[in-house]
């Protein structure tokens, strides 16, 4: 084993902050995978050279300030209405890459109509859907995606499916819509899955560039603060509790997308 120190000036840079990610400090809690999702999106945008032509539509939720965290244009939509706003932007300015970044409280609850109809119309936009099975920003209430028996501040004894119904599986739902051409679910709980998630985001952006139709990438994420866990335990919970309930995989890859790959 060598003990000679190589000066850092003589080394090559292997990884640095992506250009599309602003230098701003984020307001996310320690260990929150929102920041990982932000970074993956920024890396994908840099790799495809889309920074100057991308418009990000930020949601309401923890990622409400997403437009501050990227070095590209962004707008803020009303709660759940990011796909509607993205539709308008894409239709008047089709050469721009339009991305909505939404959480589960935004997309799967108040915004379920907008996302379904944006997909049904085959809008040529890309949605990054961050699913952490809870309402993070408002203090950890039960979301449409909360797991059965999951304890939240509005279901302190655990989610009772007789009373509140079953969790919505968004990727499965979206895959039934003809206008959606790329529907996949990935997870951010470990390095391997983070790399797979980045690949999916890259493909989703390429789908939009090629104008094939609506693309959505669902990312299983953590909320250590509202789950009442350490960030390390939260990653483990995604793997052991969320992944079995929300199976990872490609829910719909249209033939046109396969040809693209």
């Amino acid at each position, binding site marked *: 084993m060598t003990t000679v120190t190589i000066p850092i000036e003589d080394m090559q840079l292997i990884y640095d902050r992506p250009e599309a990610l602003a230098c701003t400090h984020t307001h996310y809690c320690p260990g929150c995978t929102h*920041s990982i999702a932000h970074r993956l999106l920024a890396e994908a945008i840099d790799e495809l050279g889309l920074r100057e032509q991308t418009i990000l539509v930020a949601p309401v939720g923890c990622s409400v300030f997403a437009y501050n965290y990227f070095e590209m244009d962004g707008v803020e939509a009303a709660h759940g209405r990011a796909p509607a706003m993205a539709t308008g932007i894409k239709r008047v300015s089709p050469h721009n890459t339009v991305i909505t970044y939404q959480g589960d409280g935004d997309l799967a609850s108040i915004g379920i109509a907008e996302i379904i109809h944006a997909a049904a119309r085959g809008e040529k936009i890309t949605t990054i859907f961050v699913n952490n099975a809870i309402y993070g920003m408002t203090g950890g209430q039960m979301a449409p995606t909360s797991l059965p028996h999951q304890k939240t501040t509005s279901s302190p004894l655990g989610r009772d499916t007789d009373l509140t119904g079953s969790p919505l599986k968004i990727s499965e739902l979206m895959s039934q819509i003809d206008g959606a051409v790329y529907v996949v679910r990935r997870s951010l709980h470990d390095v391997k899955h983070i790399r797979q998630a980045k690949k999916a985001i890259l493909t989703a952006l390429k789908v939009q560039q090629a104008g094939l139709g609506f693309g959505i990438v669902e990312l299983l994420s953590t909320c250590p603060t509202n789950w009442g866990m350490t960030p390390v335990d939260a990653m483990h919970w995604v793997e052991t509790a969320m992944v079995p309930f929300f199976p990872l995989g490609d829910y719909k890859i249209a033939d046109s997308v396969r040809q693209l790959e």
Partner: protein
Amino acid sequence: MAQGTIIIDHDRCKGCELCTTVCPQGVIEMDEVALNAKGYHPAILVDPNHHCTGCAICSVICPDVCITVYREIPQPRKNKLEEVTSHGA
């Protein structure tokens, strides 16, 4: 194995400890004494024997993009062989 190193932006670190769980060489630890400007104990590189290989796995999991990774520039194989031979002699 290639030699590498990382630079952690301590003031950006929120002390989530995820990097310490994934480092294959186990050279990232939490600073149990110092606090950063945010009030967290930041992650630090403790690598006196230069075990860091610059694999960049820590930078993949770091949620706050605090970690910049460097690795030695790979030398052509021939030179390495010569080096080994000269050391042997």
